[in-house]
C-alpha cells in the first residue's frame, strides 16, 4: 500500500485542566464583549420593535414592525438619510484624494518630512468635539475666514446659518479632520509596494503617471479599500460635528440620521423609533461598506 506523504499529526483537542485554564483567560474579555457590546446591541434591536419611553413606568410595549413601517413614510427620516448620504459622498472622495496626494508627497525623502507627517496627523489626535469647537469659532461671523475675506475686500459669509452653506462647511471641517489618519494609513500602504516593481516599470519605459497607475494603485488597493470602508463607517455616523456646529440646522439641512436618532431618543424619549432608525442606519452603512469592499477587491457587486 503506497504511503505517499507522511501522515499529518492528529490535532488533539486540549482537555482537562489546561483547557479550563485557557477558558478562564478568555472569560473576562468574553464577558466584556457580551455585556457591554453585544448586550446593548441586542437590547437595542429588541427596543426597535417596541414603543418605549425611559420615563414610562410600564416598560417597553411590543409594536412589531410599526417603527420600521413608520420610518418608510417619514419625510424627516428620508431627508436625514439623503443628508447623510450627501455628507459621505462629498467628504469621502475629497479626503481620500488629498490624503493620497499627501501620502505620495510624504513618502519622499526631504528635509522636515517627519515634522510634515506629524503636523498632518495632529488633527486626528485632537478630539472631534474640540476640533468642532475651534471650527465653530473659525466659521463665526467674526471668525478667521471672514476676517481673511474682509482683508481681501470680500464680504463675509454666514457659513453655518444658511441652508446652502452649513453642510458644506461641516464637510470641509471633516475633510481636514480625516486627512491625517488617511494619509498615515495610505503612507503605510505605499511603503509595502515593492521597490523592484517600480524599477521594472522604469526599465519598461513607464513614466511617472504610468507607474502610478500600474504599480502604485494596484499595490495600494487593499489599504485604499480599508481607508474607504472605515471612512464610510465614521462619516455615516456623523454626529459630534453636527451637534457642535449646527445642531442639525438651519431648518434641518444638516440633520444627519445619527443626529435625528439623538433627538428622537433623548429629546423626545422615543427609544423604540430611535432604535429602529439606528438599525436602518446600520444596514445603510453595512451596504455601503460591502459595496466599497467588493469594488476594492475587484469583485462583482
Amino acid at each position, binding site marked *: 500500500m503506497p504511503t505517499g506523504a507522511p501522515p499529518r499529526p492528529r490535532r488533539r483537542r486540549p482537555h482537562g485542566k489546561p483547557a479550563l485554564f485557557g477558558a478562564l483567560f478568555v472569560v473576562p474579555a468574553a464577558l466584556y464583549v457580551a455585556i457591554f457590546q453585544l448586550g*446593548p446591541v441586542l*437590547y437595542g434591536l429588541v*427596543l426597535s420593535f417596541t414603543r418605549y419611553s425611559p420615563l414610562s*413606568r410600564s*416598560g417597553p410595549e411590543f409594536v412589531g414592525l410599526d417603527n420600521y413601517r413608520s420610518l418608510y413614510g417619514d419625510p424627516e427620516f428620508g431627508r436625514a438619510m439623503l443628508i447623510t448620504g450627501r455628507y459621505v459622498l462629498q467628504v469621502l472622495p475629497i479626503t481620500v484624494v488629498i490624503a493620497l496626494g499627501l501620502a505620495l508627497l510624504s513618502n519622499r525623502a526631504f528635509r522636515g518630512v517627519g515634522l510634515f507627517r506629524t503636523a498632518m496627523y495632529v488633527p486626528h489626535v485632537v478630539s472631534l468635539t474640540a476640533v468642532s469647537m475651534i471650527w465653530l469659532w473659525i466659521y463665526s461671523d467674526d471668525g478667521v475666514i471672514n476676517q481673511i475675506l474682509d482683508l481681501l475686500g470680500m464680504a463675509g459669509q454666514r457659513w453655518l446659518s444658511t441652508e446652502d452653506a452649513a453642510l458644506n462647511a461641516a464637510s470641509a471641517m471633516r475633510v481636514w479632520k480625516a486627512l491625517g489618519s488617511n494619509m498615515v494609513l495610505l503612507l503605510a500602504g505605499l511603503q509595502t509596494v515593492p521597490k523592484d516593481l517600480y524599477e521594472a516599470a522604469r526599465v519598461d519605459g513607464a513614466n511617472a503617471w504610468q507607474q502610478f497607475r500600474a504599480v502604485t494603485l494596484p499595490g495600494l488597493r487593499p489599504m485604499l479599500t480599508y481607508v474607504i470602508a472605515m471612512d464610510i463607517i465614521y462619516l455615516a455616523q456623523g454626529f459630534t460635528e453636527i451637534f457642535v456646529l449646527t445642531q442639525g440646522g438651519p*431648518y434641518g439641512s444638516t440633520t444627519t440620521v445619527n443626529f435625528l436618532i439623538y433627538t428622537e431618543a*433623548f*429629546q423626545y424619549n422615543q427609544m423604540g423609533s430611535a432604535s429602529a432608525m439606528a438599525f436602518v442606519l446600520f444596514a445603510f452603512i453595512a451596504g455601503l461598506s460591502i459595496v466599497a469592499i467588493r469594488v476594492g477587491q475587484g469583485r462583482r457587486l
Partner: protein
Amino acid sequence: MRRIRSASASAGLAAGCAAALLLAACGGETETGSDGAGTLTVWFPGNSESEMALVNDTIVPAFEEETRADIEVTYVDWADISPKLNAAFAAGTAPDVIGHGVAATADLVHNDRIEDLTPYLDELDEAAREDMGAALPGGTVDGAQYMIPLIMTIRMIVYSGTDFAEAGLDPDQPPETWEDVRAVAEQLTQRDGGDITRAGLVVPSDPIGAQQAFGTFLWSNGGEFLNADNTASVMDSPEAVEALDYYVRLYQGPDAVDNTLGVAWAGSPEAQQPIATGDASMQLSNAGSIGKYQEAAPDRDLRLMMPPAFEGNEPQAFGGPANGLMINKDSGQKDLAWDFITHMIEADTNTDYAEALGALPIHASAVDSDYISANPELQKAVEALVSNHPNPNVPGWVQMRDAMGQHLERALHGEVDPQEALTAAAREVDQVIESGS
C-alpha cells in the same frame, strides 16, 4: 456627610444610557434618603459658577444646620439634564428634588414621575403665595402645582437711549405698541445701500428662540398655540398669521430692520450681543440680563421697554419660570424635599439666588430688595412679570416646539408665506397631540 459635585457635559452620559438600557425593564423604587439622618439628593440644572458658590457655601449649609439633614447637590449641564434624568428614572436612581426647566414638567407628570405639590403649597402662608402669584401658574399642569419656580424670565426689548437720542427720539418715551416699535425700528436702522449696517430691532431667529419670539407676538395679538383644553392647535388663526407676518417683515423686504436672520446670537455672552456691540438699537431679550448688558456697554445707556402689544390687545410676552424644583414621586424624603424647596423660595434666599444667576426673583415684593431697587431697569422687569405668558405645559411640548420652530424658520427665510407655515406647523402639532407623547 455632604457631597457636592458638578457633573461635566459628557461624563456619565454613556454610563447613564447603558444603565437605562440594562435596567429599563427593571423599574423599582428609588433608594434615596433611607438613612436615619435624612439624606436628600438634589439636582440643579446648569453649571453657573456663582450659583454653585451660593448654593454650596451658603444655602445648603444653612438648611443642613436648620434640619440636621445631609444634602447631596449635583449640577447638571442644561443640555444633559433630560437624558440624564431619563436614564436615572429608568435605573431607579433619580434624585429626591429635581431641578429642571418648565418645558419638562408635563412629560414628567404624564409619566407619573413627580409629586403633586398642591397640598404642600396650600399649607404655605397665603400672603407668601400671593407674593409669588406671577410665578406659580407657570409650574402647573392641568391646574395642579407640580413645579415650584425658582427664577423668572420675561422677554422685553432692551434699547439704547444713546441711539434713540441720536435719531431724535425721546429715550424716556419708548413705543408702547408693536406697530410703533416697527416705526421706531425703521428710524433707527442704518443702511449702506441695500445692506443694514445697524439693525433697528433684532429678534432671536434660531428654532427655539423663534418659537419664543413668535409666542410673544402671537399672545400680544390675542392668539394662542393651543385651544383652552390643550387638545388641538389653534396656531393658524388670523391673529397668528398677522403676528407671523409682522415677524417675517422684520427680515424680509426693502424696509427690513433686522439683519441677524439665522444667527444664534442669543446664546452668546451679553458683551457680544448686537445691542451691546452697537450692531442693533433694540433687541428682544431676557429682561433679567439687563444688568449684564449695562455692564458690558456702559456708554450705550441701555434700558428696558415695557412689553408692547398689538393695537387693541393686552401686552403678553414669553416668560415664566426659567427653572424650578419638583419632587420625585418615588422619593422617600418628600417632606424633607418640600422643606428644602420652601427654603429655596424664602424671599431673601430666592432673591440672592436670582441675583447669582442674573435672573428675576419669583416674589413681587423683591422689587424692594437691594438687588432690584438698585437698578430701575430691573424694577421694570419685575413689574413686567405680570405680563409673562409661559408656553403650554403639555406632554410632548418639546416635540411640538421643535416642529413649529422649523416651519417658523421657513417663513422667516421667505420660503413659505406665514399662512402656509402655520398651517403646516398646526398639522404637525396636532399629530404630536394625537400620538399622546
